[in-house]
């Protein structure tokens, strides 16, 4: 194996391949930074290019774009409170607060460091434990998937505010939006009102850009006008301090671990992993009350978890030849075009190419860390651009992101609607994050639910009979009700204590 890996490095470190990896990382970073443009569409666009280069080089280009986009996603989350990818939604919570406190540099830097650690971890696991780990992921059937989604949504419901009802409302709304379009299981059109444009469903990017980007622009405009906009604190330093790195390390480790676990399951995805990792972080870490106030761990954790997840989603693809959805599905297509039959035999039949690809992932992670050194500097300076110039430009770029989805006017109008709703929700403390997650997970969740019931011949007990799904569902219940119960009992305890003391 080491021999293969060293050979792989031999290929990956050839000057031309190194250059391609660098270009790929740059392209990836750019599309990661830009809201609305994602790796899936870009990879599909790059596919024809792979004819014009050697197969190994082509694969290196695709993976480095994929990796780069995950590094770039956090940038706009931190700087302008607008996630660049759905997997960076969570990063906005602490990231943007840090930027407002003059700590944009450290936030960006820790995102890069966390991403590097997580990405490298994922590749190391892929190198040494790939096949057994992927085999394990296969145990996740429809019932387990449904339970995992429920678990993910339950953690979100208790994420943002104190008001569980509002979280339930927005989660439900997200799921309801996801039912618009042609039903993926039976092919029946739902909630399309006869409008063919709605048959494809409502893309989450449309809603996310409306609710994050447009809302943010409006709120900023309002604050600027009313003079209530908080001044950005002058940056103390651009790079992150050692103390902060050490402080974030446990969070990075946990984010990496949970991100990898969730990301490895075919189709679960990086977004879900960040939500789950951040919520578990809130329960596990010391001083959890600091999370959400501009704590550096609130950036380190989700950013490492989304990179671990995107690395992990390559594990079933490369070891078993099974796609994990989204971008990895495009990569599977690319493999087939390169005359590689995706399957367990890839490592034997195309050892050179696959090991070059794995080696290039190590290289890509290192390149991205180096690349981010100067980029953090550049990006952190964006905080000094007056918002009256910055926000209109953000608005235009976000609009392009929506337009590029399917070049449809309907999407633009829907974005405006989402923007208005998002503004109202922000003003009245309805959390946006659960809505986005509900929208992203809805389709797959329903599909898994119905598949599980077909397998169980209509018996709902199936979700309780499978041990993994049972554990996840119990976990979901605990997440939903435990905080309230704990608070209650604490109140009760305090009340009794005071009454006892009074007596």
């Amino acid at each position: 194996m080491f021999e293969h890996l060293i050979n792989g490095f031999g290929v990956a470190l050839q000057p031309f391949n190194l250059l391609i990896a660098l270009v790929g990382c740059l392209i990836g970073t750019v599309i990661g930074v830009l809201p609305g443009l994602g790796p899936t569409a870009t990879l599909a666009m790059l596919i024809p290019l792979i004819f014009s280069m050697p197969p190994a080089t082509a694969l290196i280009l695709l993976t480095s774009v994929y990796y780069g986009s995950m590094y770039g996603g956090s940038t706009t989350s931190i700087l302008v409170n607008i996630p660049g990818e759905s997997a960076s939604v969570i990063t906005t919570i602490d990231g943007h607060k840090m930027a407002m406190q003059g700590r944009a540099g450290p936030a960006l830097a820790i995102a890069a460091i966390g991403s590097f650690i997580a990405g490298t971890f994922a590749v190391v696991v892929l190198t040494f434990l790939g096949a057994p780990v992927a085999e394990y992921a296969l145990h996740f059937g429809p019932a387990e998937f449904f339970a995992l989604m429920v678990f993910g949504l339950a953690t979100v419901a208790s994420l943002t505010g104190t008001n569980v009802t509002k979280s339930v409302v927005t989660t439900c709304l997200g799921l309801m939006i996801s039912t618009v379009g042609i039903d993926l299981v039976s092919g029946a059109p739902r909630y399309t009102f006869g409008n063919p444009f709605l048959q494809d469903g409502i893309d989450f990017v449309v809603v996310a850009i409306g609710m994050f980007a447009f809302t943010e622009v409006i709120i900023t405009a309002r604050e600027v006008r009313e003079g209530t906009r908080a001044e950005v604190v002058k940056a103390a330093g651009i790079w992150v301090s050692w103390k902060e790195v050490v402080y974030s390390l446990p969070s990075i480790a946990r984010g990496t671990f949970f991100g990898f676990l969730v990301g490895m399951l075919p189709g679960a995805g990086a977004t879900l992993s960040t939500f789950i990792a951040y919520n578990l972080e809130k329960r596990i870490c010391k001083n959890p009350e600091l999370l959400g106030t501009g704590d550096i761990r609130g950036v380190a954790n989700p950013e490492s978890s989304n990179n671990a997840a995107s690395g992990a989603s390559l594990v079933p693809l490369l070891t078993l030849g099974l796609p994990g959805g989204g971008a990895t599905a495009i990569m599977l297509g690319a493999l087939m075009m390169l005359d590689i039959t995706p399957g367990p035999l890839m490592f034997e039949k195309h050892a050179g190419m696959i090991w070059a690809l794995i080696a290039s992932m190590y290289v890509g992670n290192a390149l991205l860390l180096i690349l981010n050194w100067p980029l953090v500097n550049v990006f952190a300076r964006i905080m000094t651009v007056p918002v009256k110039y910055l926000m209109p430009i953000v608005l235009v770029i976000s609009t392009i992101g929506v337009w590029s989805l399917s070049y449809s006017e309907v999407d633009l109008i829907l974005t405006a609607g989402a923007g208005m709703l998002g503004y109202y929700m922000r003003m009245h403390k309805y959390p946006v994050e659960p809505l986005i997650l509900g929208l992203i997970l809805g389709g797959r969740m329903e599909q898994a639910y119905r598949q599980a019931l077909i397998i169980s011949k209509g018996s709902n007990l199936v979700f309780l009979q499978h041990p993994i799904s049972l554990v996840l569902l119990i976990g979901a219940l605990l997440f939903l009700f435990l905080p309230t119960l704990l608070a209650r009992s604490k109140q009760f305890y305090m009340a009794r204590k005071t009454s006892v003391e009074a007596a």
Partner: protein
Amino acid sequence: MVGMNAIKKKITRTQVEGLVILLVAIGYLWEAQNVPLLYQVPGVPGPTTFPWLLGIVFGLSGVWLLVSPHRLIARLRKEAADEDEDAPEAPAPSGAAFWDPITRDWHFYTIWAVILGYLVLMPSLGFPVATALLLAMFVSLLGEQRWWVVAGLALVATTVIYTGFALGLRVRLPLGVLEPLVK
């Protein structure tokens, strides 16, 4: 003292929200009837089961918001007493924005109108023209008064963005009214 007035306002708003949510849920469930029933596996959930589930939970949350003001009053009183974190942000002006007279908030509505106009007109007017107009209007609405800064920013930013996205990232951006010029 934020006082009982603000609390009462917040409660009526919550109840209005509850009502709206309930109505949306009912509409959603109603529309589920219009989903055509194509072939289905007998005995397992079809295309409307999941929507029904969602609609009911959504509706129930609406009802909860509608009928739970008592708990809310108690909590809000406590929050008001504890000087809740959103008190200094003065929720009154922002919270009440939708009911305020339009004249007082003309600026807010103008911004929305400009954005809506941009989204509606961009495909037909073309990206460059619409974007330059949007940028100019938006920057001046945000308080920039020097006309040459406004015009310069609008033109330069539009050119840079168009070049970057249309040529660099191959996003198909409509040229609209500029189409004849290119040909």
